[in-house]
């Protein structure tokens, strides 16, 4: 991927969740992971929201970055994580987040964008109930 291209494109969806898209062929390291976490916190303000992460085009993610996103030993900045995958590589990475690097908040993997959004929206409503 182009070095000047941002690794994450992260926005707040007015329906009440964070959307984070990983750039094509991105190789995520700890620094980039922390930067995105910081940005998610900025977007969230005083609240905590679920996140939909689109990793369909990811190339790799370092062990340190995976551990960071697992949020062990720190206050979670999100309430739930939906991972959108498609390529075999993104599926493998997604499965690491469901197994060895399991985040402390509910995490689910999807291949369908609509279903991922629906799950995240349910998580938003569950929070409000």
């Amino acid at each position, binding site marked *: 991927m182009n070095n000047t291209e941002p690794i994450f494109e992260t926005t707040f969806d007015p329906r009440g969740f964070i959307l984070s898209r990983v750039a094509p*062929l991105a190789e995520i390291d700890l620094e980039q992971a922390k930067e995105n976490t910081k940005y998610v916190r900025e977007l969230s303000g005083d609240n905590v929201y679920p996140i939909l992460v689109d990793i369909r085009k990811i*190339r*790799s993610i*370092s*062990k340190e970055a*995976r551990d960071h996103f697992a949020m062990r030993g720190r206050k979670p900045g999100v309430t739930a994580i939906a991972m959108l995958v498609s*390529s*075999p*590589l993104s*599926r*493998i*990475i997604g499965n*690491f987040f469901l197994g*060895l690097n399991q985040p402390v908040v509910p995490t689910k993997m999807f291949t369908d964008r609509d279903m991922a959004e629906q799950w995240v929206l349910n998580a938003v409503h569950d929070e409000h109930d």
Partner: protein
Amino acid sequence: MTKVSLDFSDAVIRLSGVKLLEGETPEDAAVRGLAIIEERLQQFESEKKNNSKRISEILDVVMALASLDYTKRATLSETPDHIDAIAGGVNMLGEELQQSTVSLKEKEVLLREIHHRVKNNLQVISSLLNLQAGQINDKIARQHYEVSHERIRAMALVHEKLYQSKDLSGIDFGNYILSLTQSLNASCNPDAKRIRLVVDVDSETPVLKIDAAIPCALILNELIMNGFKHAFPGDRKGKITVSFKKIPGEDVRYELSVSDNGVGLPEGLDPFQSASLGLQLVTVLAEQVDATLTVLGEEGTAFVLTCKCPK
């Protein structure tokens, strides 16, 4: 089966997918088609070769992982495909294994350090008791201190053997016996020519976990000291034999015995009902490790402990 009749040009045109140009004969189109097929074949061969090289690289990483080398990583191509997914997965597994090994090694170092410190602390206590004993005039009181000093030293030796052991899970008890007997002979047997201490252990002895090692160590310590103290009064000469052997025909049962050719137990003394703290300790500790204790009184005394030492 349906019969298909095609001439060579038609077959090439179909397989290559070329379209007949205006005014072109099927034979000319087939020539173009053959070039396309040839190019595809070359491309296929080149991809096959490249994939085979990539898979070999992944296998190298897997083999490195199997030989506990977690540093190797497979390279990913510019356009990730299934092979890259396998490579990525293997790489991430390698990273996870590397991390687990590091934290396991850190824990091992910590555990070794703890055993080392426990051993040092026990040695300090043991030395303090010994120093204190030197300042006591009353013979019996002094002996109590000296005995406690030896008991604690026997325990310290278990911790020493533990931190020196390969995997910290237990100690080679045969090796422990050799060290303990050497130490006791040096400290409790001033006339080693008069009372000989003979050690007879199997060349391969079991590894005892700390839960079993400490009681067995204390039992052994007690019985050897008892022999030095009571078996050879006055100038009487003799020997104490410490033996640790696998019981023939049994899988995990061992026999630990301390025997001497001394004066034997006093008339009427039941070692299982004795008021002596040492013998009481031996009985209680034998129960703790689920061992059977037998005392034989012919030609001296023999304490025989039969216990299970799982591999």
